[in-house]
């Protein structure tokens, strides 16, 4: 377990993006030194309000659109770079590009070694 006192802060960056931008975002995160993250397939909608699909002539309003939701915990110093990287890589300029939000994290533990906080990043 890391012995020295924790002085910085940890942040959880959560981004909801278009599925087809996932590869671009992954590369952009790698370029700013992010190697670990959690990625989920998700559905949702913002102002986009879904789209229409047609099955045997019957129109369905599909309100929940497929998205990728990714979460990465970073040192406070890196937050701006990470958010900028995701934002740039996920951008298409069209409706439904997604959202990124940042919240503080109290603590973090690496399960394998028991390391905590910045050592566990």
């Amino acid at each position, binding site marked *: 377990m890391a012995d020295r006192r924790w002085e910085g802060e940890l942040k959880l960056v959560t981004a909801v993006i278009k599925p087809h931008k996932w590869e671009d975002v992954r590369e952009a995160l790698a370029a700013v030194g992010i190697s670990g993250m959690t990625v989920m*397939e*998700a*559905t949702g909608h913002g102002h986009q309000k879904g789209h229409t*699909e*047609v*099955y*045997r*002539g*019957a129109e*369905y309003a599909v309100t929940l659109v497929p998205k990728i939701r990714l979460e990465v915990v970073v040192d406070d110093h890196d937050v701006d770079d990470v958010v900028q990287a995701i934002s740039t890589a996920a951008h298409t300029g069209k409706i439904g590009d997604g959202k990124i939000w940042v919240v503080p994290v109290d603590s973090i533990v690496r399960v394998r070694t028991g390391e905590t906080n910045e050592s566990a990043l």
Partner: protein
Amino acid sequence: MDTGDTAWLLASTALVLLMAPGLAFFYGGMVRSKSVLNIMMMVFYALAIFPIVWFLFGYTMAFGNDVGLGLVGGGEFIGLRGIAPDTLTGTVPTYVFVVFQMLFGVITVGLVAGAIADRAKFAAWMVFVPIWVLLVYAPVAHWVFAFDSADGSVKGGWIANQLGALDFAGGTAVEINSGFSGLALAIIVGRRVGWKREPFRPHNLPAVLLGAGLLWFGWYGFNAGSALAANGTAGLALINTTGSACAGILGWLAVEFVRDRKGTSFGAASGAIAGLVAITPSCGVVSPMGSLVVGGLAGAVCAWAIGLKYKFDYDDSLDVVGVHGVGGIVGMLAIGFLATEAGLFYGGGLEQLGRQAVASAVVLVYAFVVTYMIGLAIDKTIGFRVEEDVERSGIDQAEHLETAYEHLGGGSTLGG
């Protein structure tokens, strides 16, 4: 016995068997993920129970010597008694004929299941199938498929002999029969929870396309096998089956392009089936060019006909009425115009068209009325429909103690 004919009918029988899992996938992909096992099980149950009922009573009711008026066969073959390996039907062993004809009924009753997908008690379906085989399928198969023997010693059914309507492989007995039996059950069982309000999105269109492909493959045995011989008629049925399926796809897609400006994969699969349905009665009597007309017409008409359920407010879940009922009528009536020996367009006059219409109408009404009565009796006694919360939470889990897929993460559980 003719070994060539026998070999072809053996092969055709195996092809038709594959239509059962084909239909299970075709239907299974169309329902929501929470009810896929239930609809596939309805088809597989039909495959299990139909042969047993057929061996015991169904075959003799369909192919026993007519008891009079061409309505039903006699009981001389109950339990397949009197049939041995060297017994012949035409040029083929009767045992092969029994199984080949049996599988037509398996597909027919399997098709009916599509009209009540998502909401029928499995126990009610288990009771329904054998009763329906005896009261509806076997008599109608007798009317249509049982021909008088050449020496006149064995009499067949009224549609094939007295009326003289042409139905090569079951436009009436299989298609119109399943379509309007399905309509009767859809009315008895009622509309699904969420009808017209919630989307019933097909959960796996690749499975639908796989199923359509398997059905097409099996349909070669269904139609070309119905020649009951390895001969030119089988060849004609084969080429017409191909032509109609292809034109059916294009006919359906044409309607979609006009209406939605796009062509859907679901429409292509449906169009192939519509074309196959319509060529089923007509594959032995129209020309290859005629098969393109039959298929194109069926694709377009069925693409329109599946909208009728919204207009008349019956929930035929998987469009058995629109594709098989209406497609069967298209094929039967097309014979009146396009049959190269008796059709209106070939100088045959209106007589054949009239016979085709009578055969279609009688089978339609008989299938609807008798199925309605069977359905009503089951609904009033054991109940035909699951509870509303079962329908909402998923019929697979409630009726079969299984779910088809493991849902982890992802949004797939939300839409299913």
